[in-house]
């Protein structure tokens, strides 16, 4: 049937607008499938390969100080296949070209043997030479961000002595695929990284000569993780441990695994939304095509065309937009995947695992479009099959309308034009509902995208303008007495200094475990304040503890319960705290206690850090001084952190937001354009008759767009509701120890969604206006539909 194929081609050309609009919606679905699914496979494979090749540990434990025998005892535990122990801690590093002090995780490396676990992938240079105590390796992200290369030198106060270290290699470790300073919201490669030195240097830096404070374990195949963890805890109890944990609570592993899982979730959700809407649009367009070609199809049947031939003919019309969309989507998806891979490369560091498109993902993309096309074409194909040749040659009777109780009630307040609108909607309630849902889904995508941005903006405000009001925060290697404050205040350029009392603790209740800091809120006006999710400053509790909701939920606590806190500093290993109140906070997870209770629990002052407000002109001098101070474990500069935060949000969320906006636009435009076009096709004759009767161009435009306007108006609240629901889901899913997304749906989010919807509606309205201007008033006098 070559001529029928030619007819199909010409029909497609005639319908190029709707075909293209549907193809775009399909393309969005396929692109999100290809891009997200590719990322899922890429990250998962990269993670698995990396962990296996470089023997990432299965379990981890930190202690205050344990001797070498303890390591041997660990290795002898049933279920433990390998053990690697070392000295680990944080130090402040002087990096050439960086004014403020950087903070690094200093890790001791054996130089006489290869690592059994957490092996390093050396990217440049070499490993440490045996006995070379002035050599160091740097993590790749940190070195790149600071422009450090092999041969450069960095300096630090180690074990009370200023040491210059020569960089001999740049490396990666499976322990820090996601390298983030504890307590930070985002990685800051310029100011936080990993530094490896020989074991002796690291041990000396933390006063651990011949001992260790950090162990990684590999489990034997088939070993039970909880059993091994419990055995490790029992064995190490006397060395002061905060408890062993598995990969699931390893920070870098958690972030990476969450991201992989997120890709998987969205790779299912987004294509389902887009392909569902595409199927609906296809249903509309093909339904209209078959209705308007009734007589042609009837004639073809009368001339002997078989059902199969005609079904194949119409099926082609369904397949073309689907396949065109799939092709566009695959192309765009692969392009986007390379873009995502580039963004991920900034956050997650893998050795030599480059992204490459997967043919399997592309193939499944094409396969999933076909059911969508079939679903969209089904009704039209059935109509073709049922069409009786004689019936098809008769004109279609007027569209059926009948009174119903609801209809009478709804149309009562309106004039003729209003009644046309209401009855048009009521006659095809499913179509009206589906069109509304389609537009609403577009709105909801805008809402979710903008919500994320707004939520992060809210977090930024809470964290950086309400909670942290200092310029520089200094953290000490070991708790200090009150005297350190006076010392800090004496530094030239320091305007104010406030003690920070916060110790890391492992909280235990009812067999559950969470890590958090036990803190004392500073008296007002404080530089560092405890702030809840609404931005309210929390006063110090008089007795008992204020506990983050995150911890309360995670440990199944109730007000009045008592929890145990295992501490790595202070007089005692564990203390008991009574839950006085729950705090709904956003960032970190903490337990706040009164000053007196803190002193009583820990014994002594235990100043763990200071928050400083400084004269901007004196910053350079203060930085230089801090780099050389012994006992300083970490320095955080608020301005730099904020700059890094804003940059990351801009780079990563900016792209996501732009893409979501484009996808939402395509979705809304696809729905609005096709429904308006369909209305024009179905009602063109009716509207032309009205023009002949004396209706003006604006009046018929009002009739045509009235229905669409009702649907769009309904789509806005539905879409915002759906978006809010999705945002709520996101808040739940993104609830982590480091931060909780606040559920804020403000004007920026809602107005942006409304603007985009209004924009697409106006675009369709302009199209309708132009088409209505070209209505053939003469033809309606003569032609039947």
């Amino acid at each position, binding site marked *: 049937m070559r001529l029928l194929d030619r007819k199909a081609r010409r029909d497609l050309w005639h319908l190029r607008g709707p075909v293209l609009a549907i193809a775009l919606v399909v393309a969005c679905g396929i692109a999100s499938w290809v891009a997200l699914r590719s990322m899922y496979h890429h990250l998962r494979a990269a993670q698995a390969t990396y962990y296996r090749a470089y023997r990432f540990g299965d379990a981890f434990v930190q202690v205050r100080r344990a001797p070498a025998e303890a390591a041997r005892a660990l290795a002898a535990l049933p279920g433990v296949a390998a053990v690697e122990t070392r000295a680990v801690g944080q130090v402040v590093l002087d990096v050439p070209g960086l004014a403020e002090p950087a903070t690094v995780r200093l890790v001791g490396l054996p130089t006489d043997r290869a690592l059994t676990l957490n092996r390093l992938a050396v990217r440049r240079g070499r490993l440490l030479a045996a006995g070379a105590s002035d050599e160091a390796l740097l993590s790749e992200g940190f070195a790149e961000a600071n422009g450090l290369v092999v041969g450069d030198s960095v300096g630090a106060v180690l074990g009370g002595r200023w040491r210059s270290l020569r960089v001999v290699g740049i490396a990666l470790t499976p322990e820090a695929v996601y390298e983030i300073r504890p307590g930070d919201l985002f990685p800051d490669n310029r100011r936080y990284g990993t530094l490896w030195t020989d074991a002796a240097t690291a041990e000396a830096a933390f006063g651990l000569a011949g001992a260790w404070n950090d162990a990684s374990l590999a489990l034997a195949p088939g070993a039970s993780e909880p059993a091994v963890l419990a055995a490790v805890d029992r064995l190490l109890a006397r060395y002061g441990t905060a408890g062993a944990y598995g990969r699931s609570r390893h920070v870098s592993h958690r972030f990476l695994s969450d991201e992989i899982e997120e890709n998987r979730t969205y790779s299912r959700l987004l294509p389902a939304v887009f392909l569902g809407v595409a199927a609906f649009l296809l249903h509309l367009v093909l339904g209209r095509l078959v209705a308007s070609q009734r007589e042609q199809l009837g004639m073809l049947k009368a001339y002997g065309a078989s059902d199969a031939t005609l079904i194949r003919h119409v099926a082609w019309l369904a397949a073309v937009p689907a396949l065109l969309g799939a092709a566009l989507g695959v192309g765009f998806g692969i392009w986007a995947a390379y873009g995502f891979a580039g963004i991920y490369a900034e956050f997650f560091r893998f050795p030599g695992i480059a992204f490459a498109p997967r043919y399997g993902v592309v193939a499944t993309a094409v396969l999933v479009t076909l059911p969508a096309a079939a679903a969209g074409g089904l009704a039209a194909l059935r109509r073709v099959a049922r069409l009786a040749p004689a019936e098809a040659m008769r004109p279609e009777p007027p*569209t059926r309308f009948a009174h119903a109780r609801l209809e009478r009630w709804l149309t009562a307040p309106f004039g*003729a034009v209003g009644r046309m609108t209401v009855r048009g909607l009521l006659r095809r309630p499913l179509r009206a509902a589906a069109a509304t849902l389609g537009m609403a889904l577009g709105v909801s995508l805008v809402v979710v995208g903008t919500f994320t941005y707004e939520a992060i903006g809210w977090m930024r405000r809470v964290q950086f303008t309400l909670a942290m009001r200092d310029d520089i925060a200094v953290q000490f290697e070991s708790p200090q007495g009150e005297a350190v404050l006076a010392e800090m205040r004496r530094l030239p350029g320091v305007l104010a200094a406030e003690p920070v009392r916060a110790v890391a603790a492992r909280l235990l209740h009812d067999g559950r475990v969470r890590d958090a800091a036990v803190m004392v809120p500073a008296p007002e006006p404080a530089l560092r304040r405890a702030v809840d999710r609404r931005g309210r400053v929390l006063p110090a509790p008089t007795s008992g503890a204020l506990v983050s909701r995150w911890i309360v939920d995670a440990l199944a606590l109730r007000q009045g319960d008592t929890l145990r806190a295992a501490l790595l500093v202070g007089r005692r290993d564990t203390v008991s705290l009574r839950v006085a109140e729950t705090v709904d906070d956003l960032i970190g997870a903490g337990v706040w206690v009164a000053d007196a209770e803190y002193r009583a629990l820990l014994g002594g002052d235990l100043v763990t850090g200071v928050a400083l407000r400084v004269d901007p002109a004196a910053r350079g001098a203060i930085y230089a001084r801090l780099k050389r101070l012994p006992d300083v474990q970490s320095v955080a500069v608020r301005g730099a952190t904020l700059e890094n935060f804003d940059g990351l949000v801009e780079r990563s969320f900016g792209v996501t937001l732009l893409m979501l906006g484009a996808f939402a636009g395509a979705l809304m435009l696809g729905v609005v354009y096709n429904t308006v076009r369909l209305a024009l096709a179905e009602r063109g004759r009716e509207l032309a*008759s*009205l023009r*002949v009767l*004396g*209706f*003006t161009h604006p009046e018929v435009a009002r009739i045509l767009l009235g229905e669409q306007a009702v649907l769009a108006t309904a789509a806005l609240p539905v879409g915002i509701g759906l978006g809010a629901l999705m945002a709520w889901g996101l808040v739940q899913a993104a609830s982590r120890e480091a931060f909780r997304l606040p559920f804020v749906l403000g004007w920026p989010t809602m107005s942006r969604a409304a603007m985009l919807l209004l924009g697409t509606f106006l675009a369709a309205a302009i199209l309708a206006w132009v088409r209505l201007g070209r209505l053939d008033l003469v033809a309606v*006098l003569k032609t039947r539909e």
Partner: protein
Amino acid sequence: MSRRGAAVQLGGDTFPLEVGVAKRTVFHARGLTRTYRVGDVEVQALRGIDLELAAGEFVVILGPSGSGKSTLLNILGGLDAPTSGTVRFEDHDLTGADARALTQYRREHVGFVFQFYNLIPSLTALENVALATELAHGDPHARAAQDPAEALRLVGMGDRLDHFPSQLSGGEQQRVAIARAVVKKPDVLLCDEPTGALDFETGKLVLDALRRANRELGTLTVVITHNAGISAMADRTLRLRSGRIVDESRNASPVEPAALNW
């Protein structure tokens, strides 16, 4: 204003035709031509028409397909413009009017009846008719319209007010269309093959409705058709062929639609 009832052009000469009762002339058309370009082909639909139509007349324009009768009707109705010549409706010059003025003209003065009724499927019979009054409503130039239900009773549809088009037969739909056309009391009722899609008996019912509207409201009614049988009920019949008026006849005693035969 001319006292002549009509003029007819035969072989290039114009013969004024005096009528017994001088009626107010509403349409003046002089030298109307209309040339279409369809693809590469030039079609001369009208080749010089002079015409006058008086208030209250019932005029039938007969002609085969392609004779130009629809084109003439479209020009009279303000849907199309002549290539040359002039048309005046009372003091409106339709020739030079823009789309807005023509819409206003249709709204105030013209009622249309289509071959395929062209009712709005989502409105009941009553509402379809009321739509036309809604249009006139708020228009300072519009005269007081008839009651829509009254208009439907006039065409014998008083008992089907609340029915949707899909619940009416073709003849019933056409009578609703006539009620819609006459409800605003237009000066002229233009009907394009009003019985073309109807059977004999139903067609006569529709023609009866037209006749009643013409008599009771005094509306100038122009019916174009290729059914010569209808001309027996007309006051005047014009025959068109190839874009020219080739014959014009007056009927001193028009018959009632019920007595028509074709």
